[in-house]
C-alpha cells in the first residue's frame, strides 16, 4: 500500500484525539497485518467505497476504549451500552472522514460506522486488500488503526459518492 494512503490516517487520529479531548497520540511503526483476528476487543469499523474501496478499523482494548470514551463524552458508559458503541463509532467516523479529505484522489465515500465488542472476534476484510496496522500510543493505552484500502478496479462517478 502506498505510504500516501497511510499518512492521512496518522494525521487524522492525532487531530481527532487532540481536538476533541486533548489526548496526544504517539505513532509507532506501521506494519502489514497478516491475520483476520481483531487486534483488540473493541472495533469501530468504517467501509470505504467509490474510487477507493476497503475498510478502516479503530481497534482498542476494552480498558483503553473506556477511558477514551469517558474523555470524549464526559460520561462513564458500560461497554455493552448503546452510548459506548455510539461514541466509538463517532471516533472512527471522524478519523476516516478527516483522512479522506487528505486523499489525493477525490470521490471516496465512507459508510456509517459499525462497532463490534468482544474478545477474539474476527473482521473479514475484502480479499486482495492489504491491511496496514498503525500502532498508536496514548495515555489511555495502546490503540491501533487498521487501514485496508486499494484503488477501485472500475472508475465510478464521483457524483454518486455522497
Amino acid at each position: 500500500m502506498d505510504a500516501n494512503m497511510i499518512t492521512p490516517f496518522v494525521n487524522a487520529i492525532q487531530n481527532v484525539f487532540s481536538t476533541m479531548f486533548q489526548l496526544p497520540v504517539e505513532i509507532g511503526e506501521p506494519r502489514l497485518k497478516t491475520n483476520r483476528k481483531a487486534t483488540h476487543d473493541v472495533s469501530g469499523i468504517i467501509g470505504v467505497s467509490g474510487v477507493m474501496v476497503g475498510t478502516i478499523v479503530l481497534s482498542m482494548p476494552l480498558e483503553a476504549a473506556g477511558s477514551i470514551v469517558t474523555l470524549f463524552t464526559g460520561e462513564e458508559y458500560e461497554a455493552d451500552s448503546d452510548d459506548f458503541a455510539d461514541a466509538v463509532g463517532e471516533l472512527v467516523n471522524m478519523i476516516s472522514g478527516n483522512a479522506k479529505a487528505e486523499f489525493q484522489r477525490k470521490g471516496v465515500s465512507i459508510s456509517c460506522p459499525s462497532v463490534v465488542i468482544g474478545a477474539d472476534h474476527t473482521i473479514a476484510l475484502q480479499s486482495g486488500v492489504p491491511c496496514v496496522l498503525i500502532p498508536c500510543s496514548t495515555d489511555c493505552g495502546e490503540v491501533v488503526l487498521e487501514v485496508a484500502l486499494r484503488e477501485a478496479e472500475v472508475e465510478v462517478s464521483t457524483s454518486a459518492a455522497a
Partner: protein
Amino acid sequence: MKILLIDDSKTMRNIQKSVLKQLGYTEIEEACDGQDALSKIGAFNPDLCLVDWNMPVMDGLTFVTTFRQTNKTTPLIMVTTEAEKSRVIEAIKAGVNNYVVKPFTPDLLSERITETLAKCAVGS
C-alpha cells in the same frame, strides 16, 4: 431561540448540546436523521438547525435540499466529517449557511453559530 440538532450520533448531539447550553440556548430538539428531522421540524419550528451529512435513512444533504424547497430562511449549519472543498461547495449550493468540519473545538462551533445567526439576522 429554538435549535434542532440532526445527527445520527447521540454522542455528537450531546457535545453540540453542551456547547449550545454554554451559549445560553436551552430550547433544543434532536433528530437522528434527515427524515426524522423533516417529521419534527414543522411542529418545532426551529430558528437554527445543525445538520450532519452522513446519516442512515436520509442524509444531511438530502435533508437540506428538501427543506430548502419550502423554507429559504431558517439558518442551517452543516457539521460533518466531510472536509473536501467540493463537498463544502455542494452543501452551500444546496442551501447551508455555514459549515463546520468535525473534529471541532467548542470555541469553533460557538463562533460559527454566533456568526451564522448574526449574518442571517442582518440578511432577514
